Each structure stands twice: as C-alpha cells, then as structure tokens.
C-alpha cells in the first residue's frame, strides 16, 4: 500500500488551551513533510469525522494520525476501514496530566506526534493468516463421562460434528456407576438418568463415538489439528478444529490414607466411591457379609485439605456424603447415620440438602481428627465433638465411609521438565542450551491424554496440584494451549450441575476458536487481531529462545532447531519478538524496528538544557489504562516521560534499551503486571520474562560505564493510578540525581 499520511489535531477537551497546536502542526508539516495536516475543535463529532472521511475519499489519505484523546475512547468514531490509523493520546496523557501552556507539555505532545509518524512509517495493515489446509469445524472431545458427553451433545446441537473418545469400553465415566444423584435444586436425591444421555449421544448422527480408545497423537493447531485415535489395534485419523479435554479424575488412593482412618483394617471401611459401587440389587449392604446396615459413619475430608495428601478441598464430598447418608435413611429409616465433618461445605442452594439431612435425623459431628477403631468384627469411630466439647464414640458400626477426594487425570505421569533436567545432566553435549536455564518452566506431565506433538510437551501445562485450569478469575477458559479447552473435573473439582455448565462453556470456546481461526483472527485475549509473527529465517541462529519462551507453545522446532511457528496456535503477544536476540520476528503492525523508530523519533535535548528524557514501556492493558485514569483524575506527573504501550511487556526486545541509551535517553522504566504465583500478566509469563531480560541489562550498563539505576522494572496494576504519578516522579528524581546520559548528543 502506498501510504498517504494525514495528521489531524483535535483542539477540544482543553487541548487547544494547553498546547500551541499551530506549532504542533509544524512538527507534522515541516519535520514530517506530511501532505495533510488539519486542526479541528471537535474531531470526534460527526462533522469532525466527515472532515477526515473527506480526505480519505477525495485526497487519497490512507494513513491517519489522530492526535486527540486516548485510543481507549471514541474507538467507534475513529474507525476507518482499510486505513492505517494511529491515535496520539494528547488528552489523557498530555494535557490532562501536565501543566497547560508549559514548554515541557508542548515538547511532550510534539514528541508523541513524532513517534506516531515514525510508527506509521514502519507498519502495514495486517493480512489475515490463512493456513494451506481447509479449516476443520469438527470438535474432538476427550473423555466420555458426564462432562464429555454433555460437551459432545452441546457441540452437535450447535451444528458441529464431534469425535468423542472414551478410554473405557463404554460411555458414562464415573457418573455411570452412580445410583442416585443430588443436584439442583438440592431438595433430595434423584434417580441417575445418565443412561438417557448415553442414548442421546450414541444416537446423534453428528457424534462419532470411540470407546475403548485413546488419542495416540495430536498434531497441528486450531482449525488444522490432526488427531490419531487408536481403538482395538486399529487407528483412525480425524481433522479437528478444536478440542475439549474432559478426561475427568481418579479417586485419591485410599491406601495412602492415615492409618487412623482405618482403611484396610476392616472390609467395612470403604470410600465414598466404593459406596457407589457396592450397591447390591439396588440396596446398600455391609461389605463384609452383605447384611443390612443400621449404623453408618461418614468421615469427611479423608486425605483432603491435608498437606500430606490432597491439600485442596474437592468441593463435592459434603453433598455426596449427604446424598449417601440420605440413601441409607431411605433404605432404613431407623438407621443411625453419622456425618463427621471438619467444615460442612454446602454452598448456594445445596444448603437445603444439609437442612433436609438434619430433618431426616442424620447426626452431624464437627471434629477435626476422628479415629476409626477396627478389630475383628467390631468397628467404631472416636471423635472429639467440637460443638459438644466432648468425646463421642460411635460403636457397632456396619460401615464407615471415607470421603476421599478427586485427583485430575492430568496429575499422573512424569513431569517432562524433570525428564529434561535428568537428560541434560546426562547429556553434556546439550550444553548450548544452558543459556535458557533462566526461563521459568511449566509442569507438563506425560498423562497420555492428548499426546500433542508440540515442542513444548505432550499435554496441557498445569497449575498447582496438576489441574490444567486457567489462572484467570475473569477468564476461566484461558487454557495455555490455544484451541484446547479443559472442562469438568479435570479442570477443577466440581459437581454435576457445574460440570454440565462447564461442558457447554468449553464447547462455546471451542466453537468460537474455530470461527476466529477461520477468519485468520487471534483468540483471547487479543481477539480479532489479524496480525501474526513472521520469521526472517535466513538470519535465525537456532538459539531456541522463541520456542522456549512462547507461553502458549505455539512454535515447534525442526531437527536443526529452526523454529516452525504454528500460527493458528499463536496469541499474538509478541513474546517471541521480544525474546529473539537476532530480531528476526515481526508483525505487520508491531515490530522491533517500529518501536525502535519510535524511540529514535524522540527529540532528546542537549545536556545543558537540563531536560532529561525517560522512556516508559507500558503494558497496554493495565499500566497504559492506569495512566489514562491518572489523566481523567487530572493528576500531574513528570513531563520528561515518553510512554510507548506494548502488547505485553514480554514483547520488549533488549535492543530498545540499547537504542534508548545510545540515543541519549536518560532513563527507562518498564511498567508491567505482577508476576509470581499470583501473576496477572494475561500472557502468563510476559512481565516476568521482561523482568528477567532487564536484569541482564545492568551488567551491560556497567560495562558501558552507565549506572544501573537508569533502568527499572516497576510492577503496576490497572488500579495503581493513585500511586503511579509518584512512581514516575520519583524515578525522574533518581535520573536527575544520576545525571545526564553521557551518550547524549553522540
């Protein structure tokens, strides 16, 4: 596209009062030789927009620089198709946060305009990525339990074909072995109608069911996955658009439980799962001899909420115990049923079930450490009742039911990072990779569910306790592998109603991923972004930085360690671009060169003018928005700063630091999201990687006889605008004390 640039300067909202806009125009016309430059006192008005459209239609303007408010507002007014549009934020981040009519304020606005001109010079309109293969709209569901079957049916009802893979010989999963259920509205127990669901799934012509089968191999990416499914020694290949992982859970191994809980000491000490499996002709009976049960104790949190076993709560066991206790009562109204609990957890309407159980005469004992006494035929539980403040002994028990918890199937199998470590220790030849040791690695276990042929490992990375869950409260389906959405108890422990919902939610994301991929657009969080990374391979040194640092596992590797980007997996964060020491990765509208040019466009005054310059690289979602809100609150801060928003701080390339310093810029501050266990970076590791990269700069600075204080990483959240002006002012003071950059004027 032949660019014809036009600059529009809005003088409304106080801009015209605070700035010399005539002078500002000259930056465009004289310095930038921009053919069109116009002022308007209300640019976002219909008239103002028409004014711009007129230039597009009649003057051939196609590269528009709009110096007005933040791009976060008036997005609908300044939306011009097929034009490169850049917004220069001279309202929120200049006139609303700086002294009106001041020389420094003017210089700030002028620099932002220069930076915008440099930016548009270095960008093109993105063209959507189209894979060579046709995009598949089919959905693969791994796991044929309640969640998996619900997912399959929900996807079929939305018009998609489904491949459902279940490892057991029949559909149903754990729920298939359950007699009664307790779910919404939690008024009592109900019959399990899973059989009806199984029928519906098997009869649906859009669903291809494989039982006794597994996924041997998954290659490709969203829209272009190829799954190899094996069943009875034969294999089938399917082209797949997106995947729902509903592989479920395993009960915690009761043999590992504390002896005090008596598992193994008597056949009549069973688990909540065994309870479901021990119905005999519809009746529950004493496991040892099949006799009637009249005295039963349920012990909650068996090996749960316990650092030596499962540290978390499985969320459903309280409701399960209530259900099972009610089943015994229904069988024998005179039965003595005790529930020994630590905390009764019946959130929402399930409190009704707790109330019903109390009404039915079930006895509840709050006790943190009950003990099972089993000898020969006799079975008893001793518990210190916290509410009565005395010891209670439940004797002549026919059965003790231990509430063991749920372990996601992703918790099984060797962690590949451990494997690699071991391999590396053995294999000195791989020494070249030691440089990559600084990169935080994920936990990925060989759990034999998806068998992804990904450079980064065969399964989904997991969070603590091996759940491949999302770390984002606002975005529970943000899995770390694009187009693969975990659902049900593999993601987190949950009951029937939640699992059914979760199935639908995951299918929603899968369908959406297919839709966006077919348009060539990115999925969350940069939804709709058409740009994608392009690799100038002739300059690649096979250093593996990009493949290892990509938080989403979007880059494969060939045998020579050349990166093979899988674009439909890419989230467009630019972490690879930031990581690449050779600077070979760029997007059409976002590149190392583009940001470099923006930095170089900053006018750095001579040392004797005593006007230091500070570059701020800010996360565009959080820190940049916080700066806007400081402006909305008319909070003032230092005028030496020049802000460049980044897609993610992880896209920061160290060359920009070098560019800045050689340009004479005195200080650089990175404003990024919190990292660590409670990371807030929407690209998982972006801000952490930026911090790691920056830490290496200090060394270089010292070598150049520059002070390391010139470069800083500051953790900033979106609501930190109350303290942000002080952070910037303090940094400016530090830079002032350190003195001018000696490279100034070189």
């Amino acid at each position: 596209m032949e660019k014809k640039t036009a600059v529009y300067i809005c003088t409304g909202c106080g801009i015209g009062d605070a700035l010399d806009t005539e002078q500002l125009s000259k930056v465009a016309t004289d310095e930038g030789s921009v053919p069109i430059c116009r002022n308007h006192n209300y640019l976002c008005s219909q008239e103002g927009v028409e004014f711009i459209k007129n230039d597009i239609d009649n003057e051939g303007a196609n590269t528009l620089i709009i110096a007005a408010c933040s791009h976060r507002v008036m997005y609908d007014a300044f939306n011009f198709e097929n034009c490169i549009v850049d917004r220069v934020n001279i309202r929120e981040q200049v006139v609303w946060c700086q002294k009106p009519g001041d020389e420094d304020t003017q210089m700030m606005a002028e620099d932002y305009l220069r930076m915008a001109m440099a930016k548009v010079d270095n960008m093109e309109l993105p063209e959507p990525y189209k894979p060579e293969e046709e995009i598949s709209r089919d959905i693969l569901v791994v796991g044929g339990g309640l969640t998996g079957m619900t997912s399959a049916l929900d996807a079929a009802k939305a018009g998609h074909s489904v491949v459902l893979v279940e490892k057991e010989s029949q559909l149903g999963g754990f729920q298939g072995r359950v007699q009664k259920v307790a779910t919404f509205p939690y008024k009592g127990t109900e019959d399990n109608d899973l059989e009806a669901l199984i029928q519906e799934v098997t009869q649906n012509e859009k669903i291809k069911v494989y039982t006794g089968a597994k996924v041997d191999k998954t290659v490709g990416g969203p829209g272009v996955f190829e799954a190899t499914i094996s069943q009875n020694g034969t294999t089938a290949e399917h082209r797949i658009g997106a995947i729902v992982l509903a592989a479920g859970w395993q009960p915690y191994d009761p043999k590992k439980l504390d002896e005090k809980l008596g598992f193994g000491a008597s056949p009549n000490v069973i688990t909540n799962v065994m309870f479901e499996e021990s119905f005999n002709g519809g009746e529950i009976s004493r496991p040892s001899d099949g006799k009637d049960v009249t005295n039963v104790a349920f012990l909650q949190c068996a090996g749960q909420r316990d650092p030596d076993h499962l540290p978390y709560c499985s969320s459903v066991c309280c409701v399960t115990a209530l259900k099972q206790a009610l089943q015994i009562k229904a069988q024998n109204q005179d039965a003595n049923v005790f529930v020994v609990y630590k905390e009764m957890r019946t959130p929402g309407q399930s409190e009704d079930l707790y109330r019903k159980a109390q009404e039915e005469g079930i006895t509840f004992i709050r006790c943190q450490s009950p003990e099972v006494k089993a000898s020969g035929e006799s079975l008893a539980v001793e518990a210190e009742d916290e509410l009565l403040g005395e010891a209670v002994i439940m004797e002549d028990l026919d059965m003790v039911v231990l509430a063991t918890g749920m372990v996601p199937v992703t918790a099984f199998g060797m962690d590949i990072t451990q494997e690699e470590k071991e391999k590396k220790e053995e294999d000195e030849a791989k020494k070249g990779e030691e440089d990559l040791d600084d990169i935080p690695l994920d936990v990925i276990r060989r759990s034999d569910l998806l068998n992804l042929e990904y450079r980064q490992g065969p399964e989904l990375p997991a969070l603590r306790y091996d759940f491949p869950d999302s770390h984002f409260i606002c975005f529970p389906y943000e899995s770390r592998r694009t187009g693969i959405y975990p659902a049900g108890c593999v993601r987190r422990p949950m009951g029937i109603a939640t699992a059914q919902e979760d199935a639908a939610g995951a299918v929603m994301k899968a369908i959406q991923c297919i839709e966006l991929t077919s348009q060539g657009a990115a999925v969350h969080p940069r939804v709709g972004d058409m740009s994608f990374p392009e690799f100038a391979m002739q300059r690649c040194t096979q250093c593996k930085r990009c493949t290892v640092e990509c938080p989403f596992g979007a880059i494969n590797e060939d045998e020579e360690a050349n990166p093979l980007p899988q674009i439909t997996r890419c989230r467009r964060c630019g972490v690879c671009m930031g990581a690449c020491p050779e600077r070979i990765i760029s997007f059409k509208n976002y590149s190392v060169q583009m940001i470099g040019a923006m930095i170089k466009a900053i006018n750095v005054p001579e040392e004797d003018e005593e006007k230091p310059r500070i570059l701020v690289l800010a996360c565009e979602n959080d820190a940049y928005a916080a700066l806007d809100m400081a402006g909305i609150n008319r909070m003032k801060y230092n005028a030496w700063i020049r802000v460049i928003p980044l897609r993610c701080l992880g896209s920061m390339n160290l060359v920009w630091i070098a560019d800045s310093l050689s340009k004479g810029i005195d200080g650089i501050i990175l404003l990024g999201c919190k990292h660590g266990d409670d990371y807030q970076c929407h690209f998982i590791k972006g801000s952490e990687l930026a911090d790691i990269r920056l830490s290496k700069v200090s060394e270089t600075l010292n070598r150049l006889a520059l002070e390391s204080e010139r470069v800083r990483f500051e953790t900033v959240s979106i609501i930190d605008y109350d303290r942000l002006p002080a952070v910037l002012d303090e940094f400016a003071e530090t830079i002032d004390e350190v003195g001018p950059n000696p490279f100034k004027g070189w």
Partner: protein
Amino acid sequence: MANTETQSILVVGSGMSGLTAAIEAAEAGYDTYIVERNPYLGGRVNQLHHYFPKLCPPYCGLEINFRRIKQNPRVHFFTMAEVEKIFGEEGDFEVTIRLSPRYVNEKCTGCGKCAEVCTMEIENAFNYGMDKIKAAYLPHDMAFPMRYVLDPALVKSDEAQKIKDSCPYDAIDLEMESKTLDLKVGSIIWATGWKPYDANKLDMYGFGQYPDVITNVMMERLASWTGPTKGKIIRPSDGEAPETIAFVQCAGSRDENHLPFCSGVCCLASMKQATYVREQYPDAKIYIFFIDIRATDRLEDFYNRVKEDENIQFFKGKVAKITQDENGKDLVLRVEDTTTEELREISADLVVLATGMQPNTSDTPLPVEVPYDDYGFVASQNAKPGIYAAGCVRTPTFVSEVVQDGTAAALKAIQSVVRR
C-alpha cells in the same frame, strides 16, 4: 426446533455473567444486544477492590472485556435500560426496552466541564451512599461507556441551564425523555445478578443504628482509592483507624428468617477483606466469626494463607447481638463460643457484616412467566425455551464460576438460533 426469525441474542444485565455471555456469543459470530440498568457496563465487580484469591483488581479483566466490545461491531448495548416486555417464542422474540434519560447524548467527550460547573451534590450510589458526588458525574473512573450522566434532580433544578451552557459540545439534552424501543431477537439470556441482602433487616446487628457497623460491600469501597475515603479503612463514625475489626459471617445467610441458603462467597470475601485491613494496619486485631468456613477447591490455599496471620482469629460461633458500649465508641458482640459453650462478649471498633447475595429476580422477575425456586432464583438454566438464566440469578457464586455460567449460556442461546 426453533423457527428462527433472527439470529441475534438479547442479554439482560452486563455484570460478569451477562457481559461474558454477550461477548462470547458475538465472538462466535452472533449479534448480541446488552440491556443494562446502570449507566455503565460491568455490574457489581466494578465496585470491588480486589478479587480473591489472587487479590487482583476487577478493572483489569473489565478492561479486556471492554476492549473486546470496542473491536467487535456485533456487540450492541443500551445503558440505563430495562426490558419491559417479552413476546413470542424461541427463535422469534419481540422485546420492548425502556430507556431512561441520561440527559447526556452521544456527543459527550467525557471532558468533565459539566461536573466542573455543577454545584449540586447527590448521594454517591457507586459508594453505597457513603459520600457525595456532583449531580453531573462520570459514574466511576473506568465507566464504560465513558460518558457523563445528569441526575434528574439536577435537570429539574435552577442549575440545569447553566450546566447545559457549560458543555462546549452540545451534549446535554435537558428535554430527554424516557422512551421505549422494540427489538427482535432469537434467544434471551437473563443475567440481572444480585443485590446485597438488606442489612437493615438484621435488627440484632444494629446496622443503620451504629455507624461503625458496615456491610461487606461497603468495605470494598472503603478499601478502594476511588471510594469515599480514598482507600483508607477508617471508622465511619469518627474517621479514626480501627484497632479491632470483627467480620460477622452468615449475617442473614443460612438463616430461615432471612436468606436460608449460603451465598458461597462471603467466607472468602471476608478473608480477602482481612488482607485489606492487614495491609493498612499491621497490628490490628481481626476476628472472623463463622459457622463453617467454605473455602472450596483450591481456595483452601487462600484460607490457609490467611490463617497464618496470628492476629486473625477464626472464631467458631454465630454472633447473636451487637450493641454499643457505654463510652459510645466500641461495639460489643455477643457470641456463643460453640467450642466452650460459653456466651462471650467481644469488643470491636469496626464490624463488617458478611451479608449474602439476593437474586434481583426475587423482586424484579422476568416479564414473562418462568419458574423460580423458593428464594427467587430462576429455577433452572433453561428457564423456558429460548430463555436462559446465567450467573447469580440462578445460584449465588463467585466470579470465575459466574463467567463459566455466562459462557455456557452463550452456547445455549446460540443453539436456540442456529440455522440448521
């Protein structure tokens, strides 16, 4: 099978469930229409300081969601709007929407001139009435859309003309009237959310009588920099720093006389708020009076973290009554220590009532007949063919589960309109 007249989807309510439902469906290629009662999108999470367990700000996720809306022309929204009527059936609904006047039109640039000249002040609903704002106001810092609002009282006042004249962009329309508009949609997601249980009904706790007895939602505003105290947690009565803070769990919840159900979030919310207090007051003594601590799933980790604080005492027992002591400063909580069976009196100088979540459908039901449960929640996700309930109108729960529910509802709504 629905006779599909239109493929667009109506979403009523733009809190986390509604907002999510509308965006998720739009990103899959369907036109969605959001109807929001407030002058801004996002619902109650806008008013929260942090989420548990990450202690991260809700604005962060909202920013992403608003950005998703900005780049997606398929998401349409109406603020200060309510659904008045619904006719028709799955695939072919006709909906009447009532729009209340904002008195500010789309010409508003958000410059704030009107607020600058305005002298009239009104109670700040965003801060639960704990402070005042100008009667020409931006609802909050990240209000989306970023557009001012004029209070009806201001429009009726002598100041009105002056305010109108102050606007350089002719964005103020004093003649604006309530109006209706009709919309054809194929399916409907009802996500009107919840409200805090009215603490005035809890006579025994002296809310409204003792200014230092506040509710958990008010605590969120006290902790926030945009709240009435610029984020300083202080006693409303005298502005002093509290030394002993008591959190009263199940204030009206799990109680047959009030809300018989459990709201599922209040235990974690109080623990989270205890961290707010701790951050500002390293030595403050904190009590959490509870019946059961319901930290399900890995939220247990957060519970364990909070328990490590020696100055936070988890006290098993239900608070029976709160009174003020003779000096009129301290509050006295009468509570039965269930582990010793003693009746104890504990003093605190700030009390936070963990009130529960009441579904908005309990007093503002849908304009069509759908089944509700005993507490006013919509009884099932599929309320009737083509109409789906999502989020806290169905069950009280925390944000990530609400988002999950909103995402699921989006799929259901698509199933109702998909042309097969």
